C-alpha cells in the first residue's frame, strides 16, 4: 500500500509515540466508537516494522564490532604474552585477598575524609558567599584557601604533609602516615568541593533569597531553608564526581608507607613482574564506584520526586 506524499512516514522514524499529528488525523478519544482508519493502522504497522528493523541493525552492528575487537585483540602477535602478564588467573587469585585488605584502608579513608570534606567545603563556600563588608577578611581567606589548594598538586601536598610534618617533631602531633595523608586529602578536596558548593549557592536565583527575606526569614534562615537545599540538590552530580575521585586518590596515602589496594597490588607486581594484580585492583575500584553512583542517582531521583510534589520550581 502506498502512502500519499503528504503523510509519508519519515525515514527511520524511531520515536515510539503514536501521535504523529499528520494532516487529516482524526483526534483519537474525541468521540466514542472511534475506529482507526486503515491508513492509520498501516502507518502504525509501518512504524513498528521500522523500529524492529532499527533494533535488529543495532544488535547486528554491535555484534560485528564486538567480534572485530575480539579478533583484533586475540590475533595480535603479543596476545599470548599479554594474556599471561595481565590476565593470569593464578596471580588474580593471589592478589584478590591482599587487594581487598588494602581496599579496607581506602574505604575507611573515603568515609572519614568524605565527611570531613563535605563539612569543610560547605563552611568555606558559605564563608565565600557571605555578604557585608565586615566579612571581607573571611571571604578573602576562603578565596585564598581554595585558590591555593586547588592549584597545589595533590601529590606534592601529600609529600609535604606526610613527610614534612613529622620532621617538625612537634609534641602531640601524630606521625601516623594514614592520619597525615587523610589530612592532606581533606585539605585539597575541601577546596574542590567548596567551589562546587559555591557554584550551587550562586546558581540559586536572587529572587529566592529576596522572597525568603520578604517572608520575614533572617539571612541565616534564608540560607539554611531556602538557598542551601536548592544549591546542594543541584550539585549532587559534580559532588559525586569529586567523591569518586577522592575514593581513587585515597590510595596516594601509600606515599607514607601505608598499604592500600593499589600498593598491595604493587607489592605482588614488583615481586613477580606480572601485572594482573593491577587489573584486579582496578576492577575492585570500579566495582566500588558503581553502587555509589547508583545510590546517589536514586537519592537524587527521590529528591526530585518530592520536589515535584511540592510544585515549586
Amino acid at each position: 500500500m502506498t502512502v500519499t506524499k503528504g503523510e509519508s512516514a519519515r525515514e527511520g522514524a524511531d520515536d515510539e509515540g503514536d501521535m504523529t499529528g499528520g494532516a487529516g488525523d482524526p483526534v483519537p478519544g474525541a468521540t466514542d466508537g472511534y475506529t482507526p482508519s486503515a491508513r492509520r493502522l498501516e502507518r502504525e504497522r509501518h512504524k513498528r516494522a521500522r523500529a524492529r528493523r532499527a533494533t535488529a541493525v543495532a544488535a547486528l552492528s554491535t555484534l560485528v564490532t564486538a567480534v572485530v575487537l575480539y579478533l583484533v585483540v586475540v590475533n595480535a602477535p603479543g596476545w599470548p604474552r599479554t594474556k599471561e602478564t595481565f590476565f593470569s588467573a593464578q596471580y588474580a587469585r593471589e592478589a584478590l585477598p591482599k587487594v581487598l585488605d588494602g581496599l579496607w584502608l581506602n574505604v575507611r579513608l573515603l568515609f572519614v575524609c568524605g565527611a570531613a570534606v563535605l563539612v569543610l567545603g560547605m563552611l568555606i563556600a558559605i564563608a565565600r558567599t557571605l555578604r557585608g563588608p565586615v566579612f571581607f577578611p573571611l571571604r578573602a581567606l576562603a578565596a585564598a584557601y581554595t585558590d591555593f589548594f586547588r592549584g597545589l598538586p595533590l601529590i606534592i601536598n601529600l609529600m609535604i604533609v606526610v613527610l614534612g610534618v613529622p620532621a617538625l617533631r612537634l609534641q602531640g602531633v601524630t606521625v601516623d602516615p594514614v592520619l597525615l595523608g587523610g589530612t592532606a586529602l581533606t585539605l585539597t578536596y575541601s577546596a574542590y568541593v567548596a567551589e562546587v558548593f559555591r557554584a550551587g549557592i550562586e546558581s540559586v536565583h536572587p529572587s529566592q533569597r529576596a522572597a525568603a527575606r520578604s517572608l520575614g526569614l533572617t539571612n541565616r534562615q534564608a540560607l539554611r531553608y531556602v538557598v542551601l537545599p536548592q544549591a546542594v540538590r543541584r550539585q549532587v552530580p559534580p559532588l559525586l564526581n569529586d567523591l569518586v575521585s577522592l575514593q581513587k586518590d585515597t590510595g596516594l596515602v601509600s606515599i607514607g608507607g601505608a598499604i592500600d589496594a593499589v600498593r598491595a597490588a604493587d607489592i605482588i607486581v614488583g615481586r613477580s613482574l606480572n601485572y594482573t594484580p593491577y587489573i584486579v585492583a582496578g576492577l575492585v575500584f570500579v566495582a566500588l564506584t558503581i553502587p555509589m553512583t547508583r545510590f546517589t542517582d536514586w537519592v537524587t531521583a527521590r529528591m526530585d520526586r518530592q520536589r515535584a510534589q511540592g510544585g515549586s520550581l
Partner: protein
Amino acid sequence: MHPAPRALRRAVSAATIALLATAVGCAPQPEDKATTSSSGSAAKSCAPGKLATKTSGKLTVATDEPAYEPWFKDDKPANGKGFESAVAYAVAERLGYGRGAVVWQSVPFNKAFAPGAKTFDFDINQVSISTERKKAVDFSSGYYDVRQAVIALKGGKAAKATSIADLRNLKLGAQVGTTSLDYITDVVKPKQQAAVYAKNDQAKSALKNGQVDAVVTDLPTAFYITSAEVTDARIVGQFENQGAAPEQFGLVLDKGSALTSCVSGAVDALRKDGTLARIEKQWLSDAVDAPVLK
C-alpha cells in the same frame, strides 16, 4: 523525502566495518625472530660489535632515574662511575662495544618489565634474579651477590637488635618490589604490617622521622645511607641468605632476546677473569661485613 541520508548511513556503516576489518589485518609490530624462549638456544656467534642490537652498532643500556649511589655516581649513568655503570661498560666492552657505542636510556623500574617491544638491549637496575621473574623477562648470569641489611637510628628501639626475633615487634619499612621487602614478610614476619614505600628516599625520611623503627635495604645501599645520607643511623646487621643459591643481581633483557646468551657469556667471562671482583672492590669496597642476624 530525501534518499541521501539512507545512502549516507549505509556508506558510513560500510566504511566503518571495512575500517575495522582492516584493523584486524593491520600490520602488527614485527616480533623478534627469537621468540623461542630458550635463552641459550644455539647461540648465534656473538661477533664483537655486530650483535642484533636495537640500534645497529650501538648498545642501548637502560636504568631508572634517579640512579642511586653507590650503583651510579652523580645520577649520571654514562660517566662510568659507580658499580653498575662500571659493570655495564665492562659488559659492553666484552661484547665489542666501546664507550662511544654505549647509549644510556632512562626507563622506570616497572616499565622495564612490561610486555611488548623493549626499547633497550639490557637494563641494569639492581634487579634480583628469581624463577618467578624469569617468566616475564630474560636475565643474564648474576653480576653481583647481594645481601640484605637492616638500618636503624642510633639509640632507637632497633639499634640493639642482634637477632631476627628482636626485629619482630618493631615497625619495619622497605621499598616496594624489592627483595628487602620479601625478607621482611618471609623471614622476619613482623607483628605489625610493614611500611612499604615507592622509593628508598621515602623510607629514609620515615626512618629519620621515627615513622618506622628500621629499614631493610641491600647491603651496599645500607652502607651508603648510613655513611652519607642518614649519618645518625647505623647498620644493625645483615640477613643470612635464604635458600641454597645466593641472591644475585642480573641484567634484564627482553623475554627471548637474541642477546641473552651473549650478554650472559660476557658476564661469566668478567667474573672469571676477576674484572667483576675488581669493580666491586673499587666501588663497593667499604661494604665490609656487618653482623649476621640469626
